[in-house]
């Protein structure tokens, strides 16, 4: 008989629309992070480091990159005879076909998967946070408190508490009340979207709420369990945890890795983060180049100057090019003499010679001012930017652009140039 004490369900189907063109062709969990990683590497590595060897990954939005990245789970040691990693896309059923309509609905549609492992506990994770966490310790806490549901929470500054889902607890950690983005928060403990359910409780709740539209953990399942009088406890987590939901926070989280001793340290022997390595060779730094305060991925070749940046694998920065405060993903090419300031450049893109990116005055983006902000210039994947053009701040460029797409060779701050049909 197959039996696993705890299995994990990782929600990785979301688009992450606030990441703009970065997620136009990949799901948010598959977005590159920290030079050689993808965001989903963090929860997956946490799972295997916590001794959880059975993980269902729920995919829906643009799953190709995610699927090829996960494969059969070799990088995380999740290629197992029993259990291991399983990608769970939505599927057609007798008489109907249905997408995943909400977080809990997605889990509900995979009851059979969970059932096949006879678990005692189910861990619900999302694939869009950067953190290291031992879920086994959380499970111990869950057991010690004889809880039905444990919710991981972390203290946030009181003045920011109204941006989060807040839980109010008594002195034993038992949850008394929930407040969703409250005007007057009664506590500063914010839910991290990480839950441990006792299996029977979860199953019962999902079956009861199966007809709930857009069934969601935060909005429906947790309140249901609470109203039913089940034991909900808060597990307080005090380590590094970063939501990389916006371009600003994504950029910031990358930049924090460059600190001399970063708060989130990838160089610790304990609690390694695993990822799929496509590129093996070492990086080459040429005679007249400058590389200062940078993370640089394998196989990159640097002939120009790079400051304060996170450089992915297989990147080429040609002679005379200058890259500052930027994130370059895998296989990006920066041609001779180009300048990139506060840029986020997605995979396989090419920046033409002497082109300047991220210059000029700051002006809000005309199409999506809340997405393309923070003074960043964002370039989608497989984009080509011709030589000798100038691109301002709070801009987005995708697709194979030509010199005539830039009137007078300029894309002003706040403009969007979309030749790939990526900006909705």
């Amino acid at each position: 008989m197959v039996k696993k004490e705890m299995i994990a369900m990782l929600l990785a189907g979301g688009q992450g629309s606030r990441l703009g063109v970065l997620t136009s062709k990949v799901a948010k969990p598959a977005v590159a992070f920290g030079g050689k990683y993808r965001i989903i590497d963090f929860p997956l590595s946490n799972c295997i480091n916590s001794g959880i060897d059975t993980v269902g990954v729920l995919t829906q939005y643009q799953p190709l990159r995610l699927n090829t990245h996960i494969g059969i789970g070799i990088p995380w040691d999740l290629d197992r005879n029993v259990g291991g990693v399983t990608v769970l896309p939505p599927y057609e059923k007798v008489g109907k076909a249905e997408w995943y309509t909400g977080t809990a609905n997605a889990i509900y549609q995979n009851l059979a998967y969970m059932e096949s492992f006879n678990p005692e506990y189910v861990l619900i994770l999302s694939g869009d946070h950067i953190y290291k966490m031992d879920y086994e310790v959380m499970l111990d806490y869950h057991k010690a408190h004889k809880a039905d549901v444990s919710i991981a929470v972390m203290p946030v500054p009181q003045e920011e508490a109204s941006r989060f889902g807040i839980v109010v607890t008594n002195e034993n950690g038992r949850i008394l009340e929930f407040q969703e983005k409250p005007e007057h928060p009664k506590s500063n403990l914010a839910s991290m979207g990480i839950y441990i359910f006792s299996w029977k409780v979860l199953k019962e709740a999902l079956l009861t709420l199966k007809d709930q539209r857009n069934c969601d953990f935060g909005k429906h399942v947790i309140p249901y369990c609470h109203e039913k009088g089940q034991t909900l406890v808060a597990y307080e987590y005090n380590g590094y945890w970063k939501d990389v939901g916006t371009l600003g926070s994504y950029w910031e989280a990358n930049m924090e890795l460059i600190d001399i001793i970063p708060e989130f340290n990838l160089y610790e022997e304990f609690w390694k983060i695993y990822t799929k390595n496509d590129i093996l060779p070492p990086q080459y730094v040429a005679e007249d180049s400058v590389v200062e305060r940078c993370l640089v991925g394998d196989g990159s070749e640097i002939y120009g100057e790079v400051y304060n940046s996170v450089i992915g694998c297989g990147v080429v920065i040609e002679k005379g090019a200058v890259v500052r405060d930027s994130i370059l993903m895998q296989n990006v090419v920066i041609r001779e003499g180009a300048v990139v300031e506060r840029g986020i450049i997605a995979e396989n893109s090419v920046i033409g010679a002497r082109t300047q990116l991220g210059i000029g005055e700051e002006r809000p983006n005309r199409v999506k001012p809340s997405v393309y902000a923070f003074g960043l210039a964002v370039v989608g994947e497989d984009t080509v930017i011709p030589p000798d053009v100038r691109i301002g701040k709070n801009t987005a460029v995708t697709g194979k652009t030509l010199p005539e797409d830039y009137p007078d060779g300029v894309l002003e701050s706040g403009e969007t140039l979309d030749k790939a049909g990526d900006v909705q």
Partner: protein
Amino acid sequence: MRAVGMILAGGNSYRMKELSNKRAIAAMPIAGSFRGIDFALSSMSNSNIQKVAVLTQYNSRSLNEHLSSSKWWDFGRKQGGLFVFPPMVTSDNDFWYRGTADAIHQNLDFLRQCHEPYVVIASGDGVYKLDYAKVLEYHIARKADITVVCKDLPSTEDATRFGLIRMNEESRIVQFDEKPMAASSHTVSCGIYVIRRRQLIELIEKSIEEGRHDFVKDVLIRYKDVKRIFGYKIKDYWSNIASVESYYQTNMDFLKKEVRDYFFRQYPDVHSKVDDNPPAKYNPGSKVKNSLIANGSIINGYVENSVIFKKVFVGDGCVIKNSIVLDDVYLGDNVYLENCIVESRDTLRANSRYVGEDGIRIVIESNERYVL
């Protein structure tokens, strides 16, 4: 593929000096992220050879660790696999491998049970990319008994540590001198052979019967005029790492763009065991010129014309010139290195100075490391 692979990785060479105290040559780290044997293994995998035996003997622990899983080279299929064969005491053998022919002889059962008609024999100390399928094609077209892969060295290079070959106009080998005192030719054997499996079994059985144990001397050279032995020339990069100087030079070759492009950017790729290290990190004050830096390294000091392997820590104020720093080395602040090879897992104390005055200095220190 119609061939089975055999890699002779048991050897040691006094020319490696102290570097071989720690590992067999086939396990020597190369070019930041690879090991000697990766090139033979990757070439085999890329030529669709599915079954490979690695014969090990000398100091094989490090090599075994590297070969602990066959998945990195995409072996480990239902058909075929990666096999590691150390010498073994049996009811009718209680010797170590007494030579290359003896090594094959002790594993003759493996060859007998194969169904592939040909065998590709390679060594673990060559740095190259080779499509063995092309060599096999050549072998069949020439109706050869044995094909020896060879390479023309520049006449400036000392060829006397190799087997030297002279061929006639139809590429048949007419002269073969093993490590002669004076170089008779500049075409050297790369230690890569293609031979029909049954032919190999027959030749090896006969040699052992006669008490002969060396494949080159007792098979290749002895049968030179009886069997049809042909040479196949490698036109692209090939280098042997079995001496300290050539090991150093081979690593330094990777600082050349054309060598890097050939190995790293052109099809096919070289595969190796993956270590889960974070990207390399350059802290304020670091300065790197014309160097290779592998993943997991943290650079604070000055590095020039050097190859820095994985997980190396370079402290503040360090100066590293023309040196090779192997995996997991910790350099305290203000270390000065010039013309050195620093052995893996070393810890060099702050303010120490190592210079290779005439030639390459091998630095081996086993200081305690205090890190948080």
